[in-house]
């Protein structure tokens, strides 16, 4: 059983009489610890695919399963807990302390403020922003904003992190370090599904797919050899 399984998903948007197919008959499976990137231009369907994968939107046709359960039924209990979705990057315009923004996800789940704050501090360290604790959100640069968004999504220790264009708005020379952070998160066992609009975003991923006019191209599931490797890494991570 895959962690995430999208089977023949189709999603349409309507504006008046006009209808646009955003994703069309998409199939995709993701294993724990796998880093998967979907490359596509604007309006290719990549963001819709990610929202469907995260359970934010439901497909009109097809089924999305997460941990073996129909995501359409369970999304309220898994989104923000077992699935972390990274929203970019209007957060930099938001007010408040960075550490408060990261803790918000846990506070919404009735965690104690003390625990939420401590966990937020841990996440700041994890994403390489140890100095960010006293920063206001509006003080962050592009790369820091992305790191905070990742920390906010990871604070609940999800099994799947979905992140739309993680290098968007990040300085050229800092993009690789963001991608390396995502790689390290996957190496620790969290599956990562990300979108990319350039070749850089595909560097070092386990599986790279492309999407154009809503049609997904590439390997819909990992090879058997990849699955064996990922499961071995996952059991190793569990024992550490």
């Amino acid at each position, binding site marked *: 059983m895959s962690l995430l399984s999208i089977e023949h998903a189709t999603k349409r948007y309507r504006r008046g009489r006009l209808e646009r197919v955003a994703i069309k008959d998409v199939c995709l499976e993701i294993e724990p610890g796998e880093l998967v990137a979907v490359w596509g231009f604007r309006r*290719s369907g990549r963001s819709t695919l990610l929202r469907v994968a995260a359970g934010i939107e439901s497909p009109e046709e097809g089924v999305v399963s997460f941990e073996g359960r129909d995501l359409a039924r369970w999304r309220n209990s898994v989104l923000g807990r077992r699935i972390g979705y990274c929203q970019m990057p209007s957060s930099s315009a938001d007010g408040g302390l960075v550490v408060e923004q990261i803790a918000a996800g846990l506070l919404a789940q009735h965690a104690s403020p003390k625990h939420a704050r401590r966990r937020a501090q841990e996440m700041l360290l994890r994403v390489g922003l140890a100095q960010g604790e006293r920063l206001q959100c509006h003080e962050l640069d592009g790369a820091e904003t992305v790191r905070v968004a990742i920390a906010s999504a990871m604070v609940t220790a999800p099994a799947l992190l979905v992140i739309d264009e993680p290098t968007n708005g990040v300085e050229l020379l800092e993009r690789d370090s963001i991608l390396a952070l995502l790689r390290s998160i996957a190496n620790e066992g969290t599956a990562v599904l990300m979108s990319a609009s350039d070749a850089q975003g595909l*560097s070092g991923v386990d599986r790279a797919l492309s999407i154009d006019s809503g049609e997904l191209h590439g390997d819909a599931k990992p090879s058997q050899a990849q699955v064996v490797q990922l499961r071995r890494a996952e059991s190793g991570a569990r024992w550490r």
Partner: protein
Amino acid sequence: MGPEDSVALPGEHVLEERGVELADGSALRSQVACAVLGLVIEKPSHGYEIGQRFENRFGAFLSAGRSSIYAALGSLMDAGLIEKMSGRSTTGVRRGAKAGAPYRATARGARAYRGWLAERVRSDPQRVEMLGRMTLAGVHSVEAAADFIARYEQECVREAQELARPGRSFASDSGGVSSLVERLLIEERRRMIDAQLAWITYARAELRAVGAGLVDEAERR
């Protein structure tokens, strides 16, 4: 020494000298010879060590046995691009080269190598032309073209995936100029792939339009 003669740049282990300009480097027609020359410029070495470094650095791309390495060293010597190291007296007068001495690059060799590299780093328009002709020869329908495009896209995506995969570094040092050059070359390749992927998206739009046109035509009939 004029600007043309002053060719050793920082980091190049080459012999600075005013030598006789030998016949131009036909030795550099062989990729193995070019790779060997690069290794000698990087670090003066004996033939055996060059063979080992060749295998480590270029083994995945070029196949060359020990005899090919020594043949390349011989042709590079003949062309005056490398030479055996020799002792020098305190007055600067050269003593004879030792038979078992390591090889090092001459200034002329370093210059020839940079010229060869600059030529190769550019994309080869003839290759693109040849691929275009091969494609025209074997792709005769919209479906076949779409399949070709899909396969081409997967190749591009796969290459992007492999670029800069951790542990795939081919630079000899972990930092410094070699590392910078490696990053720059990777970035150049990424941008080429971006252009290829943009072309693929355009090609698909054209194919869809042509496909829709064919369907309309068939319905009118």
